[in-house]
């Protein structure tokens, strides 16, 4: 038996969170899910390695977790929404994480987002009916 292939497998730079990924990342995501609780976040901050050992992670997952290696964690099965429960309390923004995925500075990542608005007014006017505040 093998995992089914999907159309979305070929989208570059994209890790669709499906059954195959969720299965491989289950223990890791369970750890990340525990960060909904402040006491778990504190316990992890106090001794990351000991905390990781409670969740039966693979060696690679544990290493990526302790090193805040977001791209590594993603490739090892972390779901992005669960990954945010690690990143945000540790002081990273979603843009910091995005920049880390791309290996660029957060400032540049933000500038790329801002550039999306470059010709917005013209586009909205062309279609018509938009509120302009």
């Amino acid at each position: 038996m093998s995992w089914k292939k999907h159309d979305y497998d070929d989208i570059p730079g994209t890790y669709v969170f499906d059954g195959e990924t969720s299965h491989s990342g289950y223990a890791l995501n369970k750890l990340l899910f525990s960060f909904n609780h402040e006491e778990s976040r504190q316990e992890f901050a106090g001794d990351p390695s000991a905390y990781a050992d409670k969740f039966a992670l693979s060696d690679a997952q544990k290493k990526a977790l302790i090193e805040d290696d977001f791209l590594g964690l993603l490739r090892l099965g972390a779901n992005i929404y669960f990954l945010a429960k690690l990143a945000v309390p540790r002081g990273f923004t979603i843009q910091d994480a995005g920049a880390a995925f791309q290996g660029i500075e957060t400032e540049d990542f933000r500038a790329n987002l801002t550039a999306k608005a470059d010709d917005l007014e013209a586009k909205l006017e062309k279609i018509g009916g938009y509120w302009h505040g």
Partner: protein
Amino acid sequence: MARIVGGVTTSHIPAIGLAMAGGNENEPYWKRFFAGYEPVKEWLAKVDPDIAIVVYNDHGLNFFLDKVPTFAIGCADHYENADEGWGLQTLASFDGDVEFSWHLAESLINQDFDMTTCQEMLVDHGFIVPMALMWRHLPEWPVQAIPLAVNTVQHPLTSARRCLALGKALQKAVESYPDDKKVVIFGTGGMSHQLQGERAGHIDVDFDLQCMESLITDPEWLAGLSNSHIIEKAGTEGIEIIMWLVMRGALQANVNVVHKHYHVPVSNCGAGVLVLENAEN
């Protein structure tokens, strides 16, 4: 008889919640985005709904990956918000309407939508950010709220077409309730964004605007797209746009546009707002 007074689409981005908590609405980054909600608030005050059905996805607060329902509906007297690890302020609890919830669940299941019923349900930013956007200026929530959660987190997901069909079933469910209730439906999430991978930061303004127009005049166009196609165009998290079709399906074929607003970027996302009313009331 209960009736649908209209539908609203909105983003539910956590950064919006943080901006509201920080009172940052008039800062240059946020001003245009938030100003575009004032007409929505005015419309809501005018139509004065009794109940809001909020279509959203849970992001790992109520549902872990051990059990992932494709469609889930709240059937509780109250819904609590809680810490989801994203630094958001926890909001006051929301009153539900259990008789109405169970009526919806029964009607939807009788129409072959096999809902998961939840008698305890924590609601995360996907639900609370829209509620706060609409009603944070009031001392308490002016409506009873019904959470309707769609799995957009773990594939395989339901399809855009199925979401439109769920909306159509939801219209029948609402309109078969004997009590006089005014119901508004919120379709939340989107628009284009990708949070993860080397393609993080992907936004497609043209696709977003195409979705906005499709929602108004031709929802069949969006409903006909495959999930893979939507992910390619709108990003992995942009797939949330399928939840807007639940709202749209609950309205008539012909709708009037009360308000149309689009802003980019908001955090990593394109953000669209629609207020739609049935053309024939």
